[in-house]
């Protein structure tokens, strides 16, 4: 074998070796590719976050199980339907996706971009989006991770409500202390005024012209006494001899009275769900509470018409269902009678909600209200060991819930 033959033989061996190398590398690459895909699928199905991979034009190439779940598609047969949708359609406002793309262009990634996402049934949820560009299946794409903020927002709202209620309670306590001191001192001054007016009356002849002036002064002093009385009600300083009584009877009685007093355009409904609920306290004051709340409801419905609901039911603290009506934050655990007066009027301006129980705060016109009605209601409820909450939103009416500790009931309290 000469040099040329040896070179040909060497080249033949090299070509055969290269062919085998191609096979080795191809097998290796195939395994590596399979391993990477397995890794990607395992990670994407294991991490508890929804993720989508889509092209810039919105064609969906990949979504994980969590994405199906968050967008309300069934795991069994919703995958194909979801994949057919353009990625832009999962945004309530398609502009949000354009903002995401602009952010990716500008910064190369998006972190915590706020957007509102749309579910299969059309409902919407708040989300924070995290996104980056990548190459998937040989195409330039974006990977987007969606964090559902619904629960976070609900918790935040609950926390804010609780803080607001605690602030309100503290404010009412402070106002109560202040008003109580003033009322007490004012009462002493009034006692002197009444005494001196009486003495002055006695010392004047029957026909003396000055008697008319003294009578006017006496009337003004009577009005002042009445106002002091309401302040004392608010401050819970009036003495009360508590008795156990059924709240249902008072609710029915007030319902009947309000029906007679309101115009025909206002319906009054009384719903008693806890007919045997007994509470300890002063029935007259509970009567006063219901009359005040119903009078307010009637005031807002007088022109437009509507309905006033008086509802009595029981409630357990803390409530088992966290989504139920926001419970008062400062009530000890136990069973309560919940007396509600609700109307379907214009609702209360959210900016005013924190002030409606303040003494002398009123939205009524001059001469139409003293601003003491809700303050007195608040004071009476607190004086009975209970608490109050208000539910209202503009255009959706208002509901005042008064909670009183149950003395006894034959009905188990609702959770």
């Amino acid at each position, binding site marked *: 074998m000469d040099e040329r033959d040896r070179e040909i033989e060497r080249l033949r061996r090299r070509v055969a*070796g*290269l062919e085998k190398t191609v096979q080795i590398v191809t*097998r290796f690459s195939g*395994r590596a590719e399979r391993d990477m895909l397995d890794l990607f699928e395992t990670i994407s199905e294991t991490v508890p976050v929804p993720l989508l991979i889509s092209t810039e034009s919105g064609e969906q190439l990949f979504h994980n199980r969590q994405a199906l779940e968050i967008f309300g598609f069934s795991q069994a047969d919703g995958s194909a339907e979801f994949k057919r949708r353009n990625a832009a359609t999962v945004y309530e406002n398609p502009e949000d996706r354009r903002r995401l793309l602009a952010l990716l262009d500008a910064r190369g990634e998006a972190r915590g971009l706020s957007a509102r996402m749309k579910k299969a049934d059309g409902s919407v949820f708040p989300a924070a989006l995290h996104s980056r560009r990548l190459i998937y299946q040989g195409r330039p794409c974006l990977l987007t991770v969606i964090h559902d903020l619904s629960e976070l927002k609900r918790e935040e709202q609950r926390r804010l409500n609780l803080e607001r209620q605690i602030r309100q309670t503290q404010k009412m306590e402070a106002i109560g202390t202040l008003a109580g001191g003033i009322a007490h001192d004012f009462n002493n001054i009034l006692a002197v005024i009444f005494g001196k007016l009486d003495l002055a009356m006695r010392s004047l002849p029957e026909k003396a012209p000055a008697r008319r002036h003294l009578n006017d002064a006496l009337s003004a002093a009577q009005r002042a006494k009445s106002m002091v009385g309401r302040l004392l009600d608010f401050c819970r300083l009036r003495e009360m001899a508590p008795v156990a009584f059924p709240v249902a009877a008072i609710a029915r009685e007030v319902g009947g009275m309000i029906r007679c007093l309101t115009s025909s355009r206002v319906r009054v409904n009384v719903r008693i769900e806890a007919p045997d609920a007994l509470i300890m306290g002063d029935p007259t004051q509970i009567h006063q509470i219901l009359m005040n709340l119903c009078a307010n409801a009637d005031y807002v419905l007088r022109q437009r018409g509507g309905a006033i609901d008086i509802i009595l039911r029981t409630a357990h603290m803390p409530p088992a269902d966290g989504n139920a009506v926001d419970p008062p934050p400062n009530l000890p655990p136990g069973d309560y009678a919940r007396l509600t007066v609700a109307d379907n009027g214009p609702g209360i301006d959210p900016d005013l909600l924190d002030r409606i129980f303040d003494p002398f705060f009123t939205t009524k016109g001059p001469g139409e209200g003293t601003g003491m009605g809700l303050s007195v209601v608040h004071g009476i409820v607190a004086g009975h060991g209970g608490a109050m909450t208000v539910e209202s939103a503009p255009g959706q009416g208002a509901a005042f819930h008064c909670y009183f500790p149950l003395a006894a009931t034959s009905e188990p309290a609702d959770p």
Partner: protein
Amino acid sequence: MKIEGDGYCVEHENEEIAIRGKLSLMLEDYAPIETLLEWAVAEADGRLTLDIRNLEYLNSSGIKLLCVNLILEAADAPGLALTIRCSNRFTWQRETVPTFQDLMTDMVIAFE
């Protein structure tokens, strides 16, 4: 002779080439290592050992590098005995290194 990069090290000393770490360069970036391997084969005096017991990862371009620039070169070198020392700890070595035998039937592959 030693080449070090981000997360890897290739060293040739006393007829032994040791590769450590994770090696996943782009094809064109393997040029200096290609030169090192070919030089090691050319300089070898009857035997050469490749020690990859601490090579955790090697990409497909790296596999091609070992096949073409070391094993096929060694197969062409008359009378050169090549040994590869591998580790059972790494799946890629268990699955792929035995297939190198097709390129050089008298090569020794030793797993530890």
